[in-house]
């Protein structure tokens, strides 16, 4: 059976690109335009992996990430974060946020700098979705 991959991004171009990339590589993409929609789809569809944009206009991808990782039924789902911020900066601020929230939330399973490169995204997926 094809693995279900949820793509959450406010940018239409990125959604189309990533879902085509997934489709042509044997995955089944499902898409959400923002964090709220994303959360609903995570709960209803139980995807095998989430590709999540950090910077979205409504609420940031970080919030959805926290929700996925603090919920017993979804915390096992691997998440690949996607942002224009440099990787180092992102992981630094993740730690800072952790301290701020007072709860330890695991680091994302994968991180991709925008604009996303097809190869990098696929290799991350192969690693995370057996």
């Amino acid at each position, binding site marked *: 059976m094809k693995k279900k991959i949820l793509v959450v991004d*406010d*940018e239409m*171009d*990125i959604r*189309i*690109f*990533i879902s*085509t*990339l997934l489709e*042509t590589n044997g995955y089944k993409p499902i898409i959400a335009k923002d964090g709220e929609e994303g959360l609903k789809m995570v709960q209803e569809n139980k995807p095998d992996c989430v590709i999540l944009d950090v*910077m*979205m*206009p*409504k609420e940031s991808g970080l919030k959805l990430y926290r929700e996925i990782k603090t919920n017993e039924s979804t915390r096992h789902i691997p998440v690949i974060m996607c942002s*224009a911020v440099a990787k180092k900066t992102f992981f630094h601020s993740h730690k800072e946020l952790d301290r701020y929230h007072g709860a330890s939330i695991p680091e994302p399973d994968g991180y991709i700098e*925008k*604009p*996303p*490169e*097809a190869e990098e995204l696929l290799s991350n997926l192969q690693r995370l979705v057996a």
Partner: protein
Amino acid sequence: MKPKILLIDDEEGIRKLLGISLRDAGYPLVIAIDGEHGLELFQEEHPDIVVTDIKMPGVDGMEVLKRIKYVSPETEVIVITGHGEIELAIQSLQMDASDFITKPIHDEALFVALRRAEEKLAWRRSLRRYNETLKTKVREATEELRKNFQFQEKLMQSAIDGFIGTDDAGRAVLFNVAAQRLSGYTLEEIRELSDPLPRLVPEWGEFMARTVPAQLAAEGRSACMVQRGFLMAKNGERIPIRLSGTLLLDQDRIIGSICCLQDQRELDRLQRDLLRAERLAATGQTVAGMAHAIKNILGGLKGGRFMVNKGLELNERRYLQDGWQMVERNIEKIAQFTMDLLNFCRDREPELEETDPNGLAREVFDLYREQAAQLGVRLRLELDETLPPFVLDPKGLHQVLTNLVSNALDACTLGDDLPARPEIILSSQGLAGGRLLLQVKDNGPGIPEEVRKKLFTIFFSTKGSRGTGLGLLLSQKIVQEHGGQIQVQSVPGEGATFQVILSRKFATPPQKSPDGL
């Protein structure tokens, strides 16, 4: 303690008698048998009081008195005279004897004389102590003064700022090291100049010639001056300085002046450096913002390229179509971004022409009417039909209104807390003083305070990758080029109102009435 007494008498009976009385009274006592012996003992024993007989063989009492008073004026000498020797007694008093007693000696008279001598001694001692204290005090005060003076002198001399002090005739009396270094003149050279201050600091001459007489006349006293100026150095250089100076007055009389010179070159240099650093930081921010915007567009282009490649590879028309659309959209985006950037950076003069502001508003309204309808937003136009034509840059203002309406559409259709019946009102209105108000009002979610503060910041956007963060900034620039202002009012939850206010300057001059009145 009782004073020590030296008793000198050649008569043994008197020596014994007086010796007993004095010892009984508790005085330490040494006894000499004649004048010569007395003087010897005086040298050895240093008595405080000498009681001596006048008439003695050899060195007599007068001689003893004279010599003792010569070497030790403080020693009290009481002379013993025979009955009827009043002449000698007076003579001895003239020679500074403290008292005399006459033979036959009564103890009472003796002790009265001794008490007086003791009092004199005590008085003299305290006077001496007092004198000594006074001397010490004067020495200490002098030392203190000297130190103070030295300190002040050092302070003046080693101060970083230059000091020039002049006396009542305008001659230099103070010219510290810094002033010498700054001006290139030595102390000797400056002393030879007849009127050094106005020569070195032309502003001082101005101050003396204009300000001082005026101040003296107005307030009866002269204040000081603090201003920027130039120091005319010896080598002809004009050194920028900050100078502060004042006249020194004693009552109403001018007794001199003092002027402090601060070298401004270092400060000027620091300020220039700071400005440059700030500019660099601003440039850095701008570049980072641009890189971010370009990265986003690049992402879209790369995605498009991938799609087109896949479409070709798999011969899938759907991929080809989507991909090519992506490429086109992003080409459009980059074109718009570049235009915005150019518009923002270009220092163009507004192309002014007589324009009907209502016509401008109508154009923008027509441009968005259909898009608004599609998005379910009610777009309304409320025009003040009495408006006269204004002289303004129609292209620029068109861009401003387009921008504001497009923002309002986004506000009503993207994000949270969207209104049930979204509505945008584009209006024009004449204001007092011949000013023009163009307004775009929406009933969207409004603008939180922290966002409002950053609205006109370069590359600030709340629209994720949709915004470039240039629109409002560009609008503001255009409005400011018109000498106008752009304002935002917003109550979160109740929408936002953007107002463009153009001043009277751009209103057309009123037509002259035909009858020439």
